[in-house]
């Protein structure tokens, strides 16, 4: 790590001395990639990328220590590298988003979400995300089945089959986020930085069966289910503090649906209204939104 820190110091110093040159360099040459591929291999004395990142992240914020002066002249090729465009380390992230469910054939589901993360390294964050789905609320005459797709009446007419459907109120999850991929792309003369991240966590999902099989008698309360989620996302930096992001998330939980059978003898018994077992629900959705990193300014502490 000390060797790595020393070289990093030289590179950063060179970059500091020639900021305009550094900014202009956006090569996609074979040489450049070879260099990048070769250097980490030579310097990889650490235990793995994650640990290395933890350490690297701290160094980036506080600045690496200055190495001892060299007594002998070293003829060495030095390559200028860019600073990381936007540091995440020790910043809060606020991310409002819209969520669209992809795989529910029966009900169109839209959610409004808000996520909050704290980046405790440059690649690892912990946070919460919340999605609100219940647009009817307690309003009279508002039926979630109005958001039903046309496949529901077709199934009922053509196959004489009822479909038990649950409404969703909200979901709340605690998540870890890890950024294994980052890169940049060029549009005309503008270079955009992007990263791709993996996210996953645990939380709760509030659902409620919609009475379909015996709506005159049955009514249901909201249930709270333990829920999990995993996902992958893409974030494009518009500025150092504002990004556009899209995520593919799979929210999963065991849910209980309305019992398709109506027991004539115990029709009013609520214990017969739900199916005996749970059904595993996997809601895959696309989320689109923006993220705001706070504080908005990134401070690079450079060696003098």
């Amino acid at each position, binding site marked *: 790590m000390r060797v790595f820190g020393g070289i990093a110091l030289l590179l950063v110093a060179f970059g500091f001395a020639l900021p305009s040159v550094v900014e*202009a360099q956006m090569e996609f040459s074979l040489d450049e990639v070879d260099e990048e591929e070769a250097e980490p291999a030579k310097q990889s004395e650490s235990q793995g990328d994650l640990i290395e990142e933890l350490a690297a992240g701290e160094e980036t914020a506080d600045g690496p220590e200055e190495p001892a002066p060299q007594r002998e002249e070293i003829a060495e090729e030095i390559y200028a590298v860019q600073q990381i465009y936007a540091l995440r380390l020790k910043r809060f992230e606020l991310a409002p988003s819209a969520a669209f469910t992809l795989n529910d054939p029966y009900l169109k589901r839209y959610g409004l979400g808000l996520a909050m993360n704290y980046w405790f390294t440059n690649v690892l964050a912990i946070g919460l995300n919340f999605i609100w789905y219940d647009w009817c609320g307690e309003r009279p005459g508002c039926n979630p089945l109005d958001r039903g797709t046309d496949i529901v009446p077709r199934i009922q007419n053509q196959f*004489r089959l009822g479909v038990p459907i649950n409404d969703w109120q909200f979901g709340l999850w605690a998540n870890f986020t890890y950024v294994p991929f980052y890169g940049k792309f060029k549009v005309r003369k503008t270079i955009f930085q992007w990263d791709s991240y993996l996210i996953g966590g645990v939380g709760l999902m509030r659902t409620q069966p919609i009475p379909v099989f015996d709506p005159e008698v049955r009514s249901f309360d909201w249930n709270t289910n333990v829920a999990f989620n995993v996902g992958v996302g893409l974030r494009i930096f518009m*500025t150092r503090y504002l990004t556009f992001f899209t995520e593919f998330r799979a929210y999963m939980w065991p849910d209980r649906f309305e019992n398709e059978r109506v027991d004539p003898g115990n029709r009013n018994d609520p214990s017969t209204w739900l199916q005996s077992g749970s059904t595993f629900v996997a809601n895959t959705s696309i989320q689109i939104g923006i993220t705001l990193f706070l504080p908005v300014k990134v401070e690079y502490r450079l060696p003098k």
Partner: protein
Amino acid sequence: MMMRARHTLLRISFVAALTFGLVTAEGLAGDNSVSAQSVQVSGPLKGAPSVRNLRLWRDMRLHVEPFFAFTIADEYARSLIVGGEVRFHFLDWLGIGGWGGYSVGQLDTNLTKEIQSSGVTTNANRLDLPSRENYPGQVGRVNWWSGVEVHFVPFRGKLAMFQKVFVDADIDFFVGAAFVGVEERADAVGQPAPGNVTFCQFEGNAMDDGCLGSQGARASRVAIAPSFGASFNAFFREFVGISLRWRGIPFKYNTSGTDNNRDGQIDSSDRLRQFNNMFSVGVIFALPPKIKTTN
């Protein structure tokens, strides 16, 4: 179904408007010198190209890509597809290509299994569901897929994976026409009257008792449809890369094998528009293997 298509269009329009709004709002409000990462250079590099020694992954090269794909968001059956794609690029950002695939597997969805286990047949719906046990046999399926497309590659860059692997990457948008081999339930007429069907008439059988023969009768055709999509490509060697591709092919077919317009017969007017889409993973082999770079 039209309502559904309209909603889908509305949804896409909303997302596009949101994206456009974000980009333009940021562009208008922000200081020009700080928009994304503008490369503004003075001194000896002023006027120099922003990219030097650019590797031309596509320019005058042939890309051969075997792939595995699966359809998503299907109502009754999803397809597992093995196929290949060939593309030739006149420019690094523009090319044409053709692709084809065969459905090596068909997986019934949970809805199909539910109908198979719990569907109910009466004279009122006998044409739609002659027998619940044999329901998977009447579901519409796609046996093969092919198409020609124009490819446009406006974005390219490089990425780092786990701080160890550095690769070039680009995003390929494409649009074209697809030719799809569809297999559906064959035309049949419910008798003696719509809503009270006891037997069916179809080609080769004028007295199909209980419509059981009609349920398994199949007809094949080629559907022509627009195709479009996008792929993310990463290149690991001068001649090898991987591709993650999404492709949409909207066309009409009778997915459920039922009388959808309630006219007492199963025919072409029962086809409903489906937004068929698939996700594929492919390996790109580029020819010639030696890559060119710009000066």
